[in-house]
C-alpha cells in the first residue's frame, strides 16, 4: 500500500503491506531503528513517536494512517554535534541505563515540554506513566524532564 508522509522533516514514500505498523515501517523500511518496539500492544511506550505534534504509539498505528502526516522520531530530535538540552539533562541525571525505553521517553517528554514548558512534577509523572522503564525506577527521568523545562520556555 503506497503511503506518503514526512519523517523528521523529509518527505518519504513507502509501499508496504497493509498490515505493517508505523513502528515496523520506520524500523525496517526506513531503517530508523531508534524507535524501539517493546510490547506491540500499546502499553510500554518504547515506540512513541510524534505525529503532528502528538506523542503516539507507533506500534498501534498502521503505516497507512500516517498518510500526509508529519512524523518525528528520536533521530529527528538529535544532532551530530551535541546533545540537545533534553538529552543532556537525561545524561546529567542518569535517567537511562539500558537505553531501550529512552527514545520513547525522549519523544514523550519533548511532546510534553513543547506544549507545557511550565508543567510540574505531577504532570510529568502523569504523562510519563505511559512509558515503562525497567532500569531507572523513574526518579531520575522525572528529574531530568523537570530540569529540561527551561530550554522549552518561549521567552
Amino acid at each position, binding site marked *: 500500500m503506497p503511503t506518503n508522509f514526512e519523517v523528521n522533516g523529509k518527505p518519504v514514500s513507502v509501499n508496504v503491506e497493509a498490515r505493517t505498523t508505523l513502528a515496523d515501517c520506520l524500523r525496517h523500511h526506513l531503517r530508523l531503528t531508534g524507535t524501539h518496539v517493546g510490547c506491540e500492544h500499546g502499553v510500554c511506550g518504547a515506540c512513541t513517536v510524534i505525529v503532528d505534534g502528538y506523542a503516539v504509539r507507533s506500534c498501534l498505528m498502521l503505516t497507512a494512517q500516517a498518510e500526509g502526516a508529519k512524523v518525528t522520531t528520536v533521530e529527528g530530535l538529535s544532532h551530530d554535534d551535541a546533545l540537545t538540552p533534553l538529552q543532556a539533562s537525561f545524561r546529567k541525571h542518569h535517567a537511562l541505563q539500558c537505553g*531501550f525505553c529512552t527514545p520513547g521517553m525522549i519523544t514523550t517528554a519533548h511532546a510534553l515540554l513543547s506544549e507545557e514548558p511550565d508543567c510540574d512534577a505531577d504532570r510529568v509523572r502523569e504523562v510519563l506513566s505511559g512509558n515503562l522503564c525497567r532500569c531507572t525506577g523513574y526518579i531520575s527521568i522525572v528529574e531530568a524532564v523537570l530540569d529540561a523545562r527551561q530550554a522549552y520556555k518561549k521567552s
Partner: protein
Amino acid sequence: MKNAFIGSAIERREDLRFLRGRGEYLDDLLPKGLVYAVILRSSVAHGRIVSIDIKAALKIPGVHAVITAKDMPPSPPIVPMRLQPLPEFKPFEQPVLAHDKVRYVGEPMAVVIADSVAIGEDALEAIEVEIESLPAVADWRVAQRDQSLLFEGQGTNRSLTFNAVKGDADAVFATAPYKRRETLRVGRHYGLTMEPRGVMAEWDAAAGRLTVSGAAKVPFFNRRILAKQIGLPEDAIDMIENDVGGGFGARGEFYPEDFLIPFAARHLNRPVKWTEDRRENLMAMNHAREAEVDVEIACTRDGKILALRGHAHVNMGAYMRTNGAVGARNIAQFMSGPYRIADVKLDVSLWMTNKTPVGTYRGPGRFETDFFRERLLDMAADDLRIDRVEFRRKNLVAHGEMPYTLASIAPYPHEDELDSGDYQETLDRCLKEIGWADKAKLMGQMVDGRYHGLAIGCFIEGGAAGPKEMARLEINDDGTISVFMGSSAVGQGVETVFAQIAADALEIPMDRIRWVHHGSTSTVSDGYGAYHSRSVVMGGSALLDAANNFRVALNEEAAKRLACKASDVTLSEDKVSAPGGKSLPLSAFAGLTKEGAFLNKKHTYSYGAQAAHVAVDPKIGHVELIDYVVVQDAGRIINPLTLKGQVIGSLVQGLGGALMEHLVYDDEGQLLTGSLADYLLPTASDFPNLRAYVMDKHPSPINPLGAKGAGEGGMVGAGGVIANAVANALQSFKPDLRELPLTPTRVWEMARKRVV
C-alpha cells in the same frame, strides 16, 4: 598525575548513542538475505504430543522451513545447567524442542522460518498439533502428591532438597524460651526486560564458522554449550554482544532458542533472526521467586535470636534451567541475612510443576528470604513486646565479628562468609534519613482516611561470584587505548566504569581510553560475563591486573627504544618519556597488548537498611509510599551516579514484586497474565518518593579494588519492608499478612476484617 576518576560521578559514555537512538540492539540488525524465525509454543500445560503436522504450513508462500524434533535425530539436545550442575538435576533439564511431552504453556515445539515474521505467524496457524492432555501440576502442594508426574521415569516431581546447616538448631529449639512458627509465601514474578530476547545467527559454510548475535550475560559459557550441541569447535563460533535492553538475571542465560536459531541458520545456510514478542516473553523467559516457607524462630525473652529452622518449597516450573537452582539454594543459605544466628537448619525442596521454568532474577532467593525473615522478626518483636528497631540492632552481626560465617549448604557446598562492614551504621543512618523518631507517633494511626505505617529492615547483597574474569588493554594506531573486557553490558554502564578504572590505573586522562569493548567472545582469550553483581569486582580487578601487566610490557619496550631503565619510563597522556626528556608517542607502540585476570571464590557482601513510611487506604486497598529510604554501603564506589541508579532501579523492581507484579496461573497451568495490561509493572506515577544514600566506609578486603557487588540490594529488602509497613499501618485489623505481592485486593481484604 594522580587520577580520581574512581569515586567520581562521571556521566556515562553509553548515553551519547542511546539518547540519540543510535544504540544497536539485536532487532536493529538486518543483514542481506535475512529470514525470520517464529516459534510454535505449546498451549497445553501438560500433555503427550501425538502429532505435529507441518504440511499445510510448508505450502504457504514465503515459508522456508518448519523445524521440529524430527530434524534433530535421535532427539533434540538438552540445555545443561550452568550453576549447581548436580547429577540429580540432569533428568529434569530441558530439550530445545518438546518431542514426547509438553510440560508448560509456552514450551517450544517447532520453529518456522519465513520471509517475514508476519508470514511466519500465519504459518504457525497452519500447523496442526495434537496433544493428549495430562493432569496439570500448577502448585507445589499438588506436585508433592506425586500423582501426576512431569518426568514419569523419576517417580517424583521433586528434583532435589537443599540443606543449610549451622550448629544444632533442633537442640536449641528443644529448650528455647520463645518460639514462633509461620508459613509465608512469595508469588511468581520475573525479570521482565524492556527489550524482549532475540538471537540472530549467520552461518559461513565455506569457513565453517557461526556468528551468533544477541549474546548477553555469559557469552563464553553459552558458546561452550552451543559448540557441544551443534558439533563445532568453540573457536568456530563468535558470540557477539549488541546493545542489550536490560538483563536482571533473566536475559543471556542459554535458552532453547539459543540453539534453535543457530541450528536453523546452518540448516538453511542463511542468516536467521528471532525476536521474542511480549506475549512470548511473558511465558518463555525465566520466571522467578514463587516459594513458600514453613519457618520457625527461637529467641530469648529479651530478644536475642537463638536459632532458625524450617522447610521451604520452591515452584521450579517444568525444567531445571541453567541457573534454575540458584534462588532455591539461596533461600536455604540466606535466611539468616545480616543477623547473628548461631544455629540454623533449613531445607529447601525444589518441585517441578507445569509452569514456565524459573531462573535467577535480581536478588535471587534474597528477595524471598528478606520477606520471610523480616516479616517473622516483626511478628516476634510484637510477641516479645520489644521495639522492632532494637530487636534488629541487638542481633545484627557486629563489625568486630567480620568475617562472619554463614550456614553451609549441601549438596554442592560453598562455604560463605560476610566479608566486611558495620551493619549498625547503615541502620542508624536509615533511621535518621527516614526521620523514624518523629514519625513513630503515626504508626497505625488514621490520618485523612488512611492508615499510616512504618517499617525498617536490614539486608545483605551477595556479589562478585567467580570463577575468573579477564581484561585486556591495547594501544590503538592513534595512540589511544582500547579496553577489552570479558564482562558483559546489560545496561549497567560498564563502558564508563571500566574507562574510569583503566584511566586511574594507568594515570592518564579518561578520554585516552578510546573504546571499552565487552561481552563478545572475540574480546579476550577467555572470559565469563555479568551475573551475581560481579562486573565491577571481577572485571574491574582483572582490569587492574591487565593495567599492571600492560605497564610492565610498555615500560620494557619503551626502555629499549629510549635507551633507559624500564623503571625510569614514565607514561603521561599520550607519550612515554625517559629521564632527560626523550620521549615517544604512544602511537609508536600501536598494537602493544596485555591481558590480565582475576580469580575469586569468595563473595562480597554490600549491605544496608531500608525504611518505609506508607499510607494505606482501607477502602480501595491502595498503598502509597509517603517516603522510602535505602542506605547501602557498597565498599569502594567507582561511580556514585551509576551506583545510585542501581539502588533506585533495583528498589523499584522490588516494589513491583512487593505490590504489583504477579504471574498468575489457573489450576490447569494456563498463564492468565499474558500481556502488559495484565502483568502490572511500576510506572512513573507509582513511587515518586524514593531516596537512596550510598556509603563507602567499609571496602571489601577480598579484591584489590575494595569494591562490592551492588546491583541488587535495593530489590532485596523491598518485600519485607513493604509488608511490615503495611502490617504496621493496619495493626488494628490484626492483618493476616503472610504473602506477597500485596495487591490492592489483598490489602483491601485485610482492612475489611477488623478483629474486635
